[in-house]
């Protein structure tokens, strides 16, 4: 087996896996903290991708800048959405089920809005560096992969530090692990849920932009992205930020290796086979211990 092929394949696999991780980390958080399975998470990612597309097209804004801008904008939008839609269903007996149905509908609405604004034909996010590469010896580091990888690292690290080091972030974790005690010590659960939801949606926007640097997208692409979301969350463990990042890494390594060693038509089978293996044997993800 050829070393260049293996290395090259691993590199792009890992970098892509990290993009899935950024897209998925918020999905994991809303599921873990709020017990909300946010089916429209990918659709918000797609909204970020379309916004970045238009910003690049009409104003020449670089997708990296768009990713940075999309975070506060989506945060505010998601706060409103939480008050309007999510908060009312937190009283439901089966929040998981209620949230899935509600956000499934939301995903369809978002898809239709995007199809209205941006039309049904596929789009490609093409900044100047979209098909360039950094060449180191015999190895090529493709710029879109590097940017996606970099933004994902920054995004996930920032989220990790927020949850680990700030009072609000700690309250998010506390509310998830022991909501009653958290309330007794001053945590407003609704406020924390809103922040969690909004943070999750804003990381989705950044993740969607990164993914759009790698693949073309259409209004219904979020259905496909949803599969990646489940993949990283199931492998990484629900609510686990570090687990999600590691899941991205693992998925990347496995995809990269199977790309290098197996016939290409097996690759998707291996990747999604991984999902089934985890669902059956390790439904709590890679870590035994719950945590970040």
């Amino acid at each position: 087996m050829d070393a260049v092929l293996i290395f090259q394949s691993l590199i792009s696999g890992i970098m892509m896996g990290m993009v899935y991780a950024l897209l998925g980390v918020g999905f994991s958080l809303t599921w873990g903290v709020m017990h909300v399975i946010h089916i429209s998470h990918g659709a918000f990612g797609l909204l970020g991708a379309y916004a970045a597309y238009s910003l690049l097209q009409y104003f020449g804004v670089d997708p990296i800048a768009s990713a940075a801008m999309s975070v506060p904008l989506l945060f505010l939008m998601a706060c409103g959405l939480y008050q309007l839609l999510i908060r009312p269903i937190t009283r439901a007996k089966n929040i998981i089920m209620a949230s899935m149905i509600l956000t499934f509908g939301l995903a369809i609405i978002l898809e239709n809005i995007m199809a209205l604004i941006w039309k049904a034909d596929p789009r490609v996010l093409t900044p100047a560096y979209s098909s360039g590469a950094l060449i180191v010896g015999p190895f090529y580091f493709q710029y879109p992969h590097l940017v996606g990888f970099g933004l994902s690292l920054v995004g996930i690290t920032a989220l990790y530090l927020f949850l680990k080091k700030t009072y609000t972030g700690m309250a998010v974790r506390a509310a998830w692990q022991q909501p009653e005690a958290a309330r007794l010590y001053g945590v407003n659960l609704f406020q924390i849920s809103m922040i969690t939801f909004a943070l999750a949606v804003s990381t989705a926007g950044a993740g969607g932009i990164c993914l759009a640097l790698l693949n073309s997208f259409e209004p219904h692409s979020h259905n496909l992205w949803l599969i990646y979301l489940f993949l990283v969350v199931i492998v990484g463990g629900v609510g686990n930020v570090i687990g999600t990042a590691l899941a991205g890494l693992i998925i990347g390594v496995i995809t990269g290796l199977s790309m290098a060693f197996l016939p290409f038509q097996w690759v998707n089978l291996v990747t999604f086979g991984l999902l089934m293996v985890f669902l059956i044997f390790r439904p709590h993800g890679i870590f035994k211990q719950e945590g970040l």
Partner: protein
Amino acid sequence: MKVKRGNFFSLLVIAAIICSFTLMTPAVGFSAGKPIVIGGSLPLTGAYAETGQWIEKGMRFWADEINSKGGMLGRTVEFKIYDDQSDVGKAVTFAEKAITVDKVDLLFGGYPGTAARAVMPVAEKHKFVYVSMGGHMKSFEQGYTYSFGAPPLMGEWWYEGFFHWLATVPADKRPKRAAVYTINNPVGLSLMDSINRWTKKLNIEIVINEKYNAPLTDATALIVKAKQSRCDILFANGFFPDGVTTMKAAKALGYNPKAIVQGIGSVVPAWVKELGKDGDYVFSGTCLSGQLSYPGNDKLNAYVKKTYNLNEYPLYFGFGYSWMQTLEQAVAGAKVLDQTKIRDWLKANKVNTIAGPMTFDKRGLPEPINFGTQIINGKVELISPKNVQTKEPVYPKPAWEK
């Protein structure tokens, strides 16, 4: 929190339930009366919405044109178009419904190939003439007598035009080693037909021949393999998303074969629009083009220029128009709305379409129709056969611009 295993599966169940509850509403509802009603379904929403909507526009352009000339057999024509939501099963149901419930006078062709193939037996059962694009050879090898392709979109013929041109290139300048990557579905695999025949004839060795399943999220390994095997021609037999991923990887990894041949993806207008320069020099084929000189093409081009500000009508606009042209001439020839008489007329006579004149064989197919294309400076140019050539092909492909 413990992850409940049921969650994932319940999600799938809900998705399935909601999908099946989605209303089946006709896109346009006309009442059947004096006019001739032409019915059927198109994918106006869902995965093939983009193409389905262009087909509808082409059909409506034809209807406006014929109605302004007094209609068919002295009656105006109307459409009853259902939205099959890109679902093959729904396309079959709507075809059945159009014939038995709405009692339409004529059936129009559908898209995509999978749907067209599935509707053919319905048309045959009710003895309705069905002019569609077929999609690949198997559609026309089911022994049906009422189905016609005018012109058909045949994967098996897709690279004929390209190879005809390649055969004119001196043998020592032709590529020697081919990398072939094919999307694993009937349309993708049908492209192998002409590749297998012609590479043998032109002495091109197929060094890599691999299939992949959609979605193709990363093409790095595909390109590295082709590069390392020193393949000097790349066949990327795929659709738009995988096609884009492959092209971006080829550029990023500095892979410069003499020619890149791309299957279906590069036919979509978005290819040129979205990829810009990076989409240039890609070879492909077509069976319709606004640059052809057959009567009608200028008129269609003028219309889309005025209405949609496009320089050339999109492929699927042409398909919609061409099917209707064929049906129109057959009805005029048969002089009655009798499906069997219409069919018999089509089997015995020549029709003139925007894709050229054609006669149909037992299967309902014309002679292979294919024009080789290459994207040059963001425009789809015809390169083969010589008599329709709009530009000299650029070969070998220039190295990627950095």
